[in-house]
């Protein structure tokens, strides 16, 4: 998948409609409820007017008519209430259900999308797409749509009822309508720009505060505090100014709407009263009109907000669909690996993350079953890339990798990966108890097996000291475990699910060497008979490898065992001397 291509709005809308298909029935029901609610709501002012007309004066009340009207009114009111309630419930269902489903779909896609997408994309952005955008989308879509629908309906209905009561006054109202529209539009467009600016400034200020607070120890260590305050104040003042404008302009909306309403109200008042004097309309009719007039500007105001809201919803939808519709990794199930010997062959493999910067080229390598391969070389030389290719987090761009003669692209990734056990330098533990983490790869392991694995990896000692032992709840970054302890847990986790081949990418980098020595034995047993790839900087691990690959700039420059490479007196020998021997 290349970069985000600008998806056209119409395409997104089409995509949204596809998503909404499941909710056809509910949407139709909701629309029916909306129509009924609007009709019943609009009936009330007419009935109020008729009721007023029943009061002709002292001792001249048409009680029969009045009761009938009041009864109808009560019915209309209860009807409005019921259908509005029903509509709210249906809308809630649609909103929350669609959010839940889209979230789940996006999450599931995230689990199968190419690792490349995850590596090259801001995690924060994905997080807010799946968590926040999904909400904004469904909220905005539904609220926007309902408001638009009922808004238009209310306007049309109001005009219809007004024309029926009195054409001339209706014309007065209609003539004043453009004022409503213009004012609403003016305020909305002004506010939008202000809010954009406010959001930008707020984002900048928040990012700055986050950065400084999070790293305050460094800030203090360099006495950067005063400078940080100064910079913050600049950002803060800028935010205050744009916030003030945004808040003020947006707070004009309500008063201006009320003003336009009042204008229409007095317009209706004067026209209606004069007409009433000439008998063109009853006082009741005028009352109905006033009822409509007082609510007339509201839908206009809502509709003007809806457009932005809908646009926003569509923008959010585009961002979520980009995840949901992203291609998943392609799986081939042509072959299946069951029992693995562990012979791994790289045949003329080429790979690069960025086509313009070739990294690995013409890599050939044959690893016999049970061999231990140590990969050494300076940072950025492609050590981790090799592991990315082996595990098929990335696919080779040229050549192939085979396991026991089977091209790893002809089997499913799940099949491939279950044959490999992996411990990486960057320890990842899920939020949960220690137990959940240890059983991560092998949920069926018994308590005994789990404790045994923890013992062999020397994690048992510190686990025992934790407040709740194996049931201690750990969070990703709360600092309750040191990096070294986390690595021990990762090793124990692997020990519970020992696959035929192993990948250890600086697996013990944060464990102090004495503890490492203690778990060496466990490592030895673990590696026994298993083809193992080790990225390491510790001599003990490297020296005992069957094959050492010296990598630099994506190329395997030297290959052989420790003794051979020392005799060769090339890169490895140079590295060895600079690192492990104190000769100067």
């Amino acid at each position, binding site marked *: 998948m290349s970069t985000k291509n600008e998806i056209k709005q119409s395409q997104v809308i089409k995509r949204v409609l596809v998503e909404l298909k499941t909710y056809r029935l509910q949407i139709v029901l909701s629309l029916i409820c909306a129509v009924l609610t609007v009709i019943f709501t609009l009936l009330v002012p007419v009935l109020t007017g008729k009721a007023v007309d029943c009061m002709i004066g002292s001792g001249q009340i048409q009680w029969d008519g009045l009761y009938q009207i009041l009864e109808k009114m009560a019915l209309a009111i209860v009807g409005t209430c019921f259908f509005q309630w029903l509509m*709210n419930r249906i809308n809630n269902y649609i909103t929350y259900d669609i959010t839940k489903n889209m979230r789940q779909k996006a999450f599931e896609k995230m689990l199968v999308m190419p690792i490349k997408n995850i590596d090259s994309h801001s995690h924060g952005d994905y997080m807010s797409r799946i968590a926040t955008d999904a909400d904004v989308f469904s909220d905005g879509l539904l609220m926007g749509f309902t408001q638009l629908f009922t808004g238009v309906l209310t306007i049309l209905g109001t005009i219809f009822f007004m024309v029926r009561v009195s054409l001339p006054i209706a014309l007065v109202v209609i003539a004043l309508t453009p004022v409503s529209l213009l004012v609403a539009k003016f305020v909305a467009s002004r506010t939008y720009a202000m809010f954009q600016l406010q959001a930008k400034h707020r984002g900048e200020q928040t990012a700055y*505060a986050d950065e400084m607070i999070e790293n305050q120890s460094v800030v203090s260590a360099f006495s950067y505090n005063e400078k940080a305050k100064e910079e913050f104040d600049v950002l803060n003042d800028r935010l205050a100014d744009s916030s003030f404008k945004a808040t003020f302009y947006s707070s004009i909306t309500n008063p201006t709407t009320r003003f336009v309403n009042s204008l229409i109200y007095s317009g209706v008042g004067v026209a209606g009263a004069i007409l009433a004097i000439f008998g063109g309309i009853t006082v009741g009719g005028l009352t109905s009109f006033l009822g409509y007039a007082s609510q007339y500007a509201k839908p206009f105001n809502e509709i003007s907000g809806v457009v932005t809201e809908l646009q926003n919803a569509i923008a959010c939808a585009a961002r979520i669909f980009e995840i949901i519709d992203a291609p998943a990794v392609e799986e081939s199930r042509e072959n299946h690996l069951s029992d693995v010997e562990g012979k791994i062959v790289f045949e003329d493999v080429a790979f690069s993350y960025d086509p313009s910067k070739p990294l690995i080229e013409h890599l050939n390598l044959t690893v016999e079953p049970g061999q231990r391969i140590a990969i050494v070389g300076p940072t950025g030389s492609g050590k981790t890339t090799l592991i990315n290719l082996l595990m098929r987090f990335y696919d080779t761009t040229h050549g192939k990798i085979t396991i026991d003669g089977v091209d790893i692209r002809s089997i499913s990734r799940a099949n491939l990966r279950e044959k490999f056990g992996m411990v990486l330098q960057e320890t990842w533990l899920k939020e949960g108890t220690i137990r959940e983490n240890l059983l991560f790869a092998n949920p069926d392991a018994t308590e005994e097996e789990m404790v045994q694995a923890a013992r062999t990896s020397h994690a048992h000692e510190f686990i025992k000291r934790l407040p709740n032992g194996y049931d201690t709840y750990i969070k990703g970054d709360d600092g309750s475990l040191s990096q070294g302890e986390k690595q021990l847990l990762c090793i124990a986790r692997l020990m519970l699910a020992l696959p035929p081949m192993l990948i250890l990418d600086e697996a013990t980098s944060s464990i102090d060497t004495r503890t490492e020595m203690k778990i060496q034995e466990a490592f030895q047993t673990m590696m026994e008979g298993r083809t193992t790839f080790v990225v390491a900087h510790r001599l003990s691990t490297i020296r005992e490898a069957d094959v050492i690959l010296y990598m630099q700039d994506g190329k395997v420059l030297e290959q052989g065992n420790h003794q051979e490479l020392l005799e060769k007196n090339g890169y490895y020998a140079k590295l060895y001397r600079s690192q492990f021997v104190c000769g100067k």
Partner: protein
Amino acid sequence: MKFLGKYLKDYKKESIFAPLFKMLEAIFELLVPLVMASIIDVGIANRDRDYVIHMCLLLTLFAILGLAFAITAQYFAAKAAIYTASKMRADLFHRIMDMSAASHGSVGTSALTTRITSDINQIQSGINMFLRLFLRSPFIVFGAMIMALIVDVKSTLIFVIVIALLGLVVYGITKSTLPIFSRIQKKMERVFLAVGENLEGARVIRAFGNQDQQKQAFGTQTEDLYADQMRAGKVSALLNPITYVIVNLGVVAVIWFGSTQVDMGILAKGQVVALVNYMSQILVELIKLANLIVVLMRAYASVTRVEQIMEMPYDERTYVTETQKASEADAVSYEQVSFAYPQAGEMAIRDIDFKVPDHGTVGIIGGTGSGKSTVLHLLNHMYDASKGKVLIYGKDVRSYKENELTKIVGLVPQRGVLFHGSIRDNIRFGREDITDDMIATAVHAAQADNVIESKEHGLDEEILQDARNLSGGQRQRLMIARALAGQPKILVLDDSASALDVATDAALRKAIRGLPWHPTTFIVSQRASSVMEADQILVMEDGCIVGKGKHEDLLRDNAIYQEIYYSQFPKDEKEQNS
């Protein structure tokens, strides 16, 4: 609340005028139905065209005045709210920046960032809404009732009942949904974190074929969230329909009761219409009032939280005055120093005692958690020692001002960070006196020349968020350059070369030795190779120094050092090559 008052004081004028103008607006709104009633009862009844036109002009005047007052009020309210919050935010940030590590730690980073962002925002909208509505809404609700009272005493009973019922319903619904909403908020955060966790752990999850389990776990979370949303929705879906029914049945009652009054000649038709209008005005304002209460409750909680931070002691460290001048004898000396972290029961380091002569190099080695970094935390007075004294150039560290100390001690932290901005800005890091030459020297010594060269814009390359465009080793080298650029007399490397391959690490140490100002150097590491050339090596174990001396001596006499060393340099190899 006193706390808030202190800030609002600067905007006293605005804080008083905003609600006042809102109230004026409300008065004009309340007068409208009365005017309309007289149009009906006087104008239409007497067929007086001029009267009607006058009254309508009056209404238009009311509208214009209302608009003017409202906008003025909104202006004042926005001004008071925004600038008060802004001042509070700045003060809060300044205070946080002055916090000591212990105070910062006792609150926690994420709590501090929440205070400065969402809490202050809550306070801001709280003030804004409060100034706009606290007079207006109750004024309209009760004003309508009083107007009703003016029109007809007996009908007022209907108003009282309607207002009471509305209040009850709004209160009940708000109260019962509020806890669900805050629960939803928490569950939303969890969903957010779950997504993040799965992105972080993508490789491990896939390597262990754990996708289905993750899918299920996430499914449970979203279902759970959904259930709460539906629960809250069930209740809040009632709000509009029920309030609508109450108010409009109130209208029916007013008409019905009004008719009997009209029948008896007590009320005129127009007055009944006015009563109906008042009834409708109540609803809108009451809902606003309910929202206001929710916003105020949140804002109040936020004020309390911000106040807590502002009032807590932000620097518990002690400072002493020492008249004696800095001496040149020893750069650093620790005299029987022990230290326990705040809230920790046990001492993290005990009886640390050593001296480092000027220009000397000291290596500190030991296992994870042995207290190596803690020793360094006392060197730049990040914390007070619990017992004993730390001296720099013969003077107690507590007698140095913070910015003096940071100039002397150049720290490369273990969990290091680079900041948003160019590489140059990061290396200079606010110190204006650092010249481009000094940067070049620092970069060179830090072995970072090729980092700069590999970037298209060299020193002006922008560092992305979380320094994503740099590898771990590149980051470390730039952080070393940052510390070196200030040409500190004492350089502290707290396990800061762990991501460097050992060859680069060796070259780095060599370059540091060659620096023209010969900094006194602390090297903390787990690698024996990093410390073995030091003039003095401290071996740490469980918070104590268990060995002190040169590499050769320690290798001969110190069991723990031997163990560490031989775990990294297996015996036979060593013999073979030396």
